[in-house]
């Protein structure tokens, strides 16, 4: 190594570092090395390079947590392919399977399958029971038909507590409403407000006529008597009518009109309308036997809308009669009316128990 070259190079480098220019007397080798020295002048400090790297990594670390969370989400999204445990593979990378866990999983799956099968079997076996605790109720009297002109019936009775039985005579004309009851013996000769005595019934009804007022069905013709009944009118009944019945009508019945017994549908009397009709229940006996049938009940729907005097007209057995009676007894009706007066009527109700 030529020491003079090293000296010249150091001299040139010193001039370069001092900002001077290269001297023309330097040999060619020095001129070739000076550009290298010039480039080395701009080398970065190693410690700066390292410290800046640390700073950037620290700054990047603030983003890493977010990036790690995103990476975890991506990993979870692709997990089914890599983490689903193979049951009987034990090589590296396979998800470990514990025997106890496998047995427990198998047992749970068997139990779940058994539950599904059992519930399906139960549903098949109890299909009818589950779906047929309902019953259909049908009134045999058609509520929507117009009233029939000839089948109405009713009656009335009265009297003024006379010791003599009512005397035979003509009943007053039918009218609605009744203003004053008929009397065979006039107790008040000078009423404040005179009114024609009437009984409640259809005006077109025709009754036997006699020379004087009285009960057409009375056994005795005299002496004149209003009878042993109460409430005005003539007869042994009560209620302002004529006869042995009850109410403002004529005859042995009750509730007005004539013919005996309670009102029946027709003759201007529409059917009562059910406003509360809970369904009956199937009897346990009929349910087990998968029995279906119908029960016809006879009932009087009072002027208050409550059914009474329920009796079975056609039985079905298997405990269904009782269930039908219990249900209909809870029904409530808008009562039938004759004119503006609510009246009791007799109706038949069919309760049908069906298996669907």
């Amino acid at each position, binding site marked *: *190594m030529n*020491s003079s*070259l*090293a*000296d010249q*190079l*150091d001299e040139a*480098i*010193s001039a370069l*570092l001092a900002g001077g220019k290269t001297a023309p007397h330097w040999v060619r080798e020095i001129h*070739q*090395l000076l550009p*290298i*020295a010039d*480039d*080395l*002048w*701009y*080398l*970065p*400090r*190693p410690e*700066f*390079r390292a410290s*800046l*790297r640390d*700073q*950037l*990594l620290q*700054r*990047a*670390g603030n*983003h*890493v947590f977010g*990036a*790690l969370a*995103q*990476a975890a989400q991506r990993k979870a999204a692709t997990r089914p392919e890599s983490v689903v445990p193979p049951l009987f593979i034990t090589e590296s990378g396979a998800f470990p399977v514990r025997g106890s866990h496998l047995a427990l999983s198998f047992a749970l799956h068997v139990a779940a399958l058994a539950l599904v099968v059992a519930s399906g079997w139960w549903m098949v076996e109890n299909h009818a029971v589950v779906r047929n605790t309902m019953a259909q109720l049908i009134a045999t009297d058609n509520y929507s038909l117009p009233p029939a002109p000839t089948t109405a019936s009713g009656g009335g009775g009265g009297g003024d507590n006379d010791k003599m039985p009512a005397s035979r005579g003509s009943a007053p004309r039918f009218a609605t409403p009744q203003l004053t009851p008929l009397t065979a013996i006039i107790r008040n000769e000078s009423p404040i407000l005179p009114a024609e005595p009437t009984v409640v019934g259809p005006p077109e009804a025709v009754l036997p006529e006699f020379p004087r007022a009285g009960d057409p069905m009375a056994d005795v013709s005299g002496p004149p008597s209003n009878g042993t009944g109460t409430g005005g009118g003539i007869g042994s009944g009560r209620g302002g009518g004529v006869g042995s019945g009850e109410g403002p009508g004529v005859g042995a019945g009750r509730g007005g009109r004539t013919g005996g017994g309670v009102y029946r549908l027709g003759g201007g009397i529409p059917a009562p309308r059910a406003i509360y009709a809970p369904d009956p229940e199937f009897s346990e006996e009929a349910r087990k036997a998968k029995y279906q049938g119908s029960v016809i009940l006879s009932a009087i729907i009072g002027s208050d809308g409550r059914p009474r005097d329920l009796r079975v007209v056609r039985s079905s057995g298997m405990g269904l009669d009782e269930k039908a009676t219990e249900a209909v007894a809870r029904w409530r009706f808008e009562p039938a009316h004759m004119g503006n007066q609510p009246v009791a009527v007799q109706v038949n109700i069919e309760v049908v128990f069906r298996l669907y």
Partner: protein
Amino acid sequence: MKAIEPDADERQLIEAARRDPSRFAELYEANFDRVYAFIARRVPTREEADDLTADVFRQALSSLPSFEWQGMPFAGWLLGIATHLIARRWQRAAKQTALPVEALESVGVPEQTERRAIFSQLVERLPEDQRYVVRRRFIDHRSIREIAQELGRSVGAIKQLQFRALETLRMQVRSRHE
């Protein structure tokens, strides 16, 4: 140092750094010397070169999610940031109203910058005593005498080490370009 042509590896590095910012370190190591060499020639002091280099990489890290791959080398994008920061610094200092032409030509990686950037790696490959002399002489601006005292050797020996180091670097640079 890797080639400056955009390749699949660099693209993968960028995508990895966008997903995981901690991977930005790999991009930093691959491009630090280029950026520093580019900046150091355009600012008067080493301290300014350090500051601007740090600003370039900080801005690159924060802007990486919006980086769109358009076929240009990543170093070109970094040097674009460096050009912008250098120009802004000049304008702020009001030392120069017009931007130098070289500073505006930053879309690619200048060949001169690329050549200078290589020296960092070449110096690392020098023998330890030569590497020490080069660092103390050119980076720390120590005199030959100071270095000789630090190493306990003669001034002549340090000059010889300096001469051999530069000769070795020249040979290596020439072999890379042949």
